[in-house]
């Protein structure tokens, strides 16, 4: 039961990019370095995020990627859905031929997990993740200089 590499790396890189771009387009080279992800892979992931309307690419000198909208309006739910599809704890196939035991488990357990997790992901915004990330960076750099 794990989130895919695309979901993990994509979200991590997006937060890093958003924390460093300050609304100007930035190249993915620094994000790739900081997050230890290959540039090639990152370009693919950002291509998906661009199609989903989460980031925008700017061509030419000084070009690169920036957020397509404000970080506060982008939820983790829509980022993960773009990268790996809607969160669902089990495959939804074969729900028609469920017996009473399977149906009860489906309704009480699997549907409930989906509901709770999707609610959580829908409430968390990219802005929150960027804030947390910056706090972590500040904290660790203070620790370093003290």
């Amino acid at each position, binding site marked *: *039961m794990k989130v895919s590499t695309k979901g993990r790396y994509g979200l991590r890189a997006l937060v890093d990019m958003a924390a460093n771009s300050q609304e100007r387009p930035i190249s993915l080279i620094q994000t790739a370095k900081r997050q*230890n992800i290959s540039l090639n892979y990152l370009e693919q992931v950002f291509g998906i995020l661009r199609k989903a309307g989460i980031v925008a690419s700017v061509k030419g000198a000084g070009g690169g990627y920036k957020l397509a909208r404000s970080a506060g309006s982008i939820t983790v739910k829509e980022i993960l859905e773009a990268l790996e599809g809607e969160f669902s704890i089990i495959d939804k196939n074969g729900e028609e031929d469920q017996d009473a*035991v399977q149906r009860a488990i489906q309704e*009480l*357990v699997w549907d*409930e997990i989906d509901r709770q997790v999707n609610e959580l992901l829908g409430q968390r915004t990219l802005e929150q993740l960027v804030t947390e990330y910056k706090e*972590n960076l500040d904290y660790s750099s203070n620790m370093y200089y003290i």
Partner: protein
Amino acid sequence: MKMSTKGRYALEIIVDLAMNSTPERLESLKNIAQRRNLSEKYLERIIKALKQRGLVESVRGAYGGYCLTVPCEDITVKNVLTAVEGELTPVHCLTKESDCGVSCDLCPTRNTWGSMWKTITNTVENITIADILKRVDEINDEP
């Protein structure tokens, strides 16, 4: 992100045992496998993990079989799922060392995955096997 079939079947098996066995009347592997449409071999592997967790006991011999060791209102879905799946973490690095090359203290997403883990855990901690049995009865009573 998906739960494995092990977790799904483990829950079905526990519910099946709650419905069809008592310490006085054990249920055979064969009957459970037939009702749950599982191979006996796969079933045995899952039951072994449930036994290790102390949720199921078995008696060998001609009158042998399986039953639950605990009343079903005291067994949570979390007990069953973690017995076969381990911790219900959405990413490995919450409980195991990470190989991503970024320090966990600086990870931009650790907190989000941690919240997801907590949400999943809290949800399954609050559902018991007795709740599921009640729902099964309701479904069976439907016209």
